[in-house]
């Protein structure tokens, strides 16, 4: 199996894992988790210098999910990557669970920041990038922002810092699924052109199909795009990617499926895993 095929299988398995959490909690922020999960998979299985056996390594790369409501994507991938047993996914959303609706670094192995309130991830990521630069061992920081959180002014405080301090060990990925609770992001508050805004703050940018693993991997492999500049990847994605009946709907933001809907989503995602495993085995 090629590396690319392996990553595609991992992303499909992670999507399937999300149904376990949905089954446990009955509800969850599915749309955003499924739109960013290809990026999160590529980061943990391909790009980042992280490993469950050296979780406190000061030189490790850092991952932050500024759009913390997409936590199910991170949990699914962390479990697949061995940061905790996959059985923990079945406790999602239950009393005292270590997997909370938004990431908690003190509860979940591998989580680096307590995000959830939007607009917080990028400034924290800038601080980590500055700190890792001071340490000088090559540590990098990757932060996923949602396009719906871009109107938060603190993102642009962070963007100014990243540009000013030329943080080329910082990679921002905007999960641009184009939808938020109230509807189309462009209608709610138009933040386009996103890439150009970051470029104006001193970033180097690429726009990609964020649900196409080859595009994701190629873009991540090319970071930093320019020496002395932070990188931004504007990942055009589909909200709820992988669950056909939900794809591209604002209603998928926080989904409360019926038992029947969840069963259908689970069997569809299982079929996708089976198909990709078959294709991958032949590659």
């Amino acid at each position, binding site marked *: 199996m090629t590396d690319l095929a392996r990553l595609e299988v991992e992303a499909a398995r992670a999507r399937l894992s999300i149904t376990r959490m949905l089954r446990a909690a009955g509800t969850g922020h599915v749309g955003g988790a499924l739109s960013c999960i290809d990026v999160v998979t590529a980061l943990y299985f391909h790009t980042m210098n992280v490993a469950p056996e050296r979780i406190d390594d000061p030189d490790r790369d850092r991952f932050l999910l500024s759009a913390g409501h997409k936590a199910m994507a991170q949990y699914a991938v962390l479990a697949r990557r061995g940061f905790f047993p996959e059985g923990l996914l079945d406790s999602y959303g239950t009393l005292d669970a270590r997997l909370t609706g938004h990431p908690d670094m003190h509860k979940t192995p591998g989580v680096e920041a307590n995000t959830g309130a939007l607009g917080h991830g990028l400034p924290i990521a800038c601080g980590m990038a500055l700190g890792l630069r001071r340490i000088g061992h090559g540590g990098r920081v990757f932060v996923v922002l949602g396009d719906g959180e871009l109107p938060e002014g603190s993102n642009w*405080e962070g963007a100014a810092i990243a540009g*000013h301090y030329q943080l080329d060990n910082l990679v921002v990925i905007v999960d641009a699924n184009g939808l938020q609770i109230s509807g189309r992001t462009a209608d709610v508050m138009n933040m386009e052109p996103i890439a150009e805004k970051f470029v104006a703050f001193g970033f180097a940018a690429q726009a990609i199909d964020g649900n196409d693993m080859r595009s994701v991997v190629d873009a991540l492999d090319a970071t930093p795009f320019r020496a002395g500049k932070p990188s931004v990847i504007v990942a055009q994605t589909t909200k709820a990617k992988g669950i056909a009946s939900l794809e591209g709907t604002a209603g998928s933001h926080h989904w409360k499926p019926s038992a029947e809907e969840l069963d259908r989503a689970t069997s569809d995602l299982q079929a996708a895993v089976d198909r990709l495993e078959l294709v991958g085995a032949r590659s």
Partner: protein
Amino acid sequence: MSTTLIDPRKTFGEAVTDYAAEHDHVLVLSADSGVSSGFGRFKAEFPDRYYEFGIEEHGVTGVASGLAATGFEPVFAAIAPFVTLRNFEAFRNDVGYMRQNVKIVGRNGGMTYSDLGPTHHSLEDYAVIRMIPGVVVLSPQDPGEIRAAARAMLEHEGPVYMRIGGPFIPELFDETPFEIGVGRLIESGDRATVVSTGTITVEVIAAVGALREQGIQVDLIGMPTVEPVDAELIRASAARSGFVVTVEEHYVRGGLSAAVAEVTGDMRIRRAAIGLPHEHITTGTYAELLARYELDAESLSRRLRDLIEAAPR
């Protein structure tokens, strides 16, 4: 008490700089506020450990969290309302909830930026920050306490907020090591327990001195930690006097008065609180505001006497 008046900001900045000379992990973050917060020497001596960010207090608070997450100890100082209110959610989540080793210092606290108006006053910082679980709130009372508290703050592993003022202040006490959460008994007497914090204590000491000359003796507790307060010291004194009065340059709601009420809530004692009324206060010189809001020594002496004399013995 010395009559020489000392710059609290410079005192604070020098103390941090001296500590940082022996602790490489201490960094200073500035939101166009570092030099005016006393860090001129730090910037000159450790330019690569001094980070300027311009005016963006939420962003800097997030950066502080990230730097702490990679093993550094950032100190971020600026005008008090901007590092407690403008950035409050970052303080709560990125620093408090993440339990980061970040030190945030509000200078020109209280109403010391007297003529600049309510945007620059800080009369709710104790209340607001002590609501964040796990954050220590300090308000040292004189230059020696500022120096000692700065060292204690930097030695403490975890988030700390410290308020300092702006106008020059006298040395009140011999400098001793600072213990977070420990008060100091400045005067002794059984008519009341007066608890004071921050630089208003200089007025309270004078007020209590005047009372003593009138034959009214009280316990005066200087409480430079607002969160957590020294419950043991306050309760022991309150048990003797039966009457606790707090004095603070802060709204009477939510700050030292609330902290003291909380730790004495089960005691059958009288309580009173002296501070700022719950309104957007007026402007003027600092001395004029102290007089207007009856927080100067003469007014405090009268108010304390009236409260004590109204109390059943």
